[in-house]
């Protein structure tokens, strides 16, 4: 199956879950339209809870539902979950280990693109990585979002899935690879010159970069890290040892997310040279292509980083 984008894929998976079991609940902070669940709400009103534009309340309500055995999904913009309602996520869901799922839209600079900083979220993973016990998944396209939604529904505990604005490029066009929670996925193994670790809605750019690098004689092992927690430390370590040079490439602040996680693995016993590509400032509004160029996060920037690591001018 394919969907128009990640939000529709999430909605389709949730629809199937609700069809099977009414324990699944969708908590809306006036986010029904944004979550593409208008049809779900009409079909299964007994699975829908509306609280209005009140994200802290949405998380609290979800926590209350979970204590009685429901499996609530709180779906709204990434930052409103992880920043505005951060304390509720930490204290009333993660700390008691309640079975609540968070689905954040507009992940990264690309997620918010022309909306600008208020609706672009590149801090969410860093924030959640500092809170114990939350599973964190970052699918790369619609098909994977569908699989990831089902995967987090099967986890008995708090989970966060970051998705986009429903306009993401399709990454996996043919056979959709199985989404195995907590495991890295090698997308290309063109050689041991440099490893590229990536996830999310710029994975297509990383794939292009790997192809370009292959043509100029730099063999890339391209790794998709769609689960940030539990992190596949073993899998990442194997690739780091094999390549000795690595790039992390993510639509997130370079501090706190994959760039930091890989740095930690390197520092704790897996020496490698590393270049982190990501944000380190507040960007702004723009089209995806313009933003990627302006903030040095485009395909060319990966190529440049790989050349620098391999000392190829």
């Amino acid at each position: 199956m394919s969907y128009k984008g990640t939000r529709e894929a999430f909605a389709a998976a949730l629809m199937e879950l609700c069809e099977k079991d009414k324990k699944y609940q969708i908590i809306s902070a006036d986010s029904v339209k944004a979550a593409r669940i208008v049809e779900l709400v009409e079909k299964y009103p007994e699975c829908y809870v509306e609280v209005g534009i009140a994200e802290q309340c949405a998380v609290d309500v979800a926590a209350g539902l979970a204590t009685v055995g429901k499996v609530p999904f709180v779906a709204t913009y990434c930052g409103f979950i992880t920043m505005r309602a951060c304390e509720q996520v930490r204290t009333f869901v993660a700390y008691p280990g309640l079975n609540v799922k968070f689905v954040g839209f507009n992940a990264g600079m690309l997620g918010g693109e022309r909306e600008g900083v208020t609706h672009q979220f590149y801090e969410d993973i860093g924030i959640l990585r500092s809170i114990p016990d939350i599973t964190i998944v970052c699918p790369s396209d619609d098909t994977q979002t569908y699989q990831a939604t089902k995967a987090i529904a099967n986890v008995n505990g708090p989970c966060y899935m970051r998705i986009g604005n429903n306009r993401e490029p399709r990454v996996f066009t043919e056979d959709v690879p199985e989404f195995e929670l907590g495991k890295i996925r090698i997308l290309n193994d063109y050689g041991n010159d440099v490893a590229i670790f990536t996830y999310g809605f710029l994975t297509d750019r990383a794939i292009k970069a790997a192809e370009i690098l292959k043509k100029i004689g730099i063999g890339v092992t391209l790794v998709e890290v769609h689960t940030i927690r539990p992190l596949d430390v073993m899998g990442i370590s194997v690739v780091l040892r094999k390549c000795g040079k690595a790039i992390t490439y993510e639509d997130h602040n370079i501090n706190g997310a994959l760039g930091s996680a890989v740095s930690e693995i390197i520092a704790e016993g897996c020496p490698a040279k590393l270049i982190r590509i990501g944000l380190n400032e507040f960007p702004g509004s723009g089209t995806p292509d313009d933003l990627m160029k302006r903030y040095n996060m485009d395909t060319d920037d990966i190529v440049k980083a790989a050349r620098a690591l391999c000392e190829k001018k």
Partner: protein
Amino acid sequence: MNRNIQELIKIARELRFDVVDMVYKSKDGHPGPALSIGDLVTALYFSEMNIDSKNPKKPGRDRFILSKGHACPIIYAALAKLNYFSNDLLPTLRTCDSILQGHPCMKKTVGIDMTSGSLGNGVAIGTGMEIARQRDNGSWYTYVITGDGELNEGVIWEGALAAVRNKCENLIVFIDFNNNQSGGHTDQISGINPIADKWRAFRWHVQEIDGHDYEQIFAAIDAAKKEKGKPSVIVCKTIKGKGVSYMEDNNAWHKGVPTTEQWEIAKKELLGGNM
């Protein structure tokens, strides 16, 4: 349902002493806020709530959230008296590896339905519990106790809206209106008064009572249960530190540890005096 008021008054005195005793022995805690809600907690745990220490996770039980989580010593005392755990654990309050955390923790303490302590969240969490009850066609109630200072928190009012939006008729919220918050009188700190009018404006079923008068407490609960289609709030006029002369309406006891002499005075006033 035990509505023998003389008996409940005696239980409340014993619980209040347990609060002073555990704070004295563990050398930390919030006695004033705990004593303030002593009668509400006694009415709920020893009369009103359908709960069972032998089956603490019974699905159809009533739920309780102490939104003002710092008052937890009184809940710990009630749970111990009801045999959820041994009375011997009370002095371990706030110590490393104790099941009795500084603020309630549902994972560590049997009988606690919801983790709490960060102020403002009980109404919204209770709303979630009550929606779950509706969806399961249960007949149980969710009780929440909030502070008055706690009403400063915005999420209280988010929850107040959501509870009405979702017709949370089995949600009953008590406000411990002792007119004190951490930094002083509520009038000086936050201007939250008049409290009842605000809840009326949010379209809750609102009652105002003396939170130390059992007849009024039970009458208000009965009336709240009769009200259909909307949540109920009971604004309870209380005295912070109630029952211990030197703590009453004295905000110095928001948090504090009694000396041995003060502990002896409290013991005499709560257990040794006339009923």
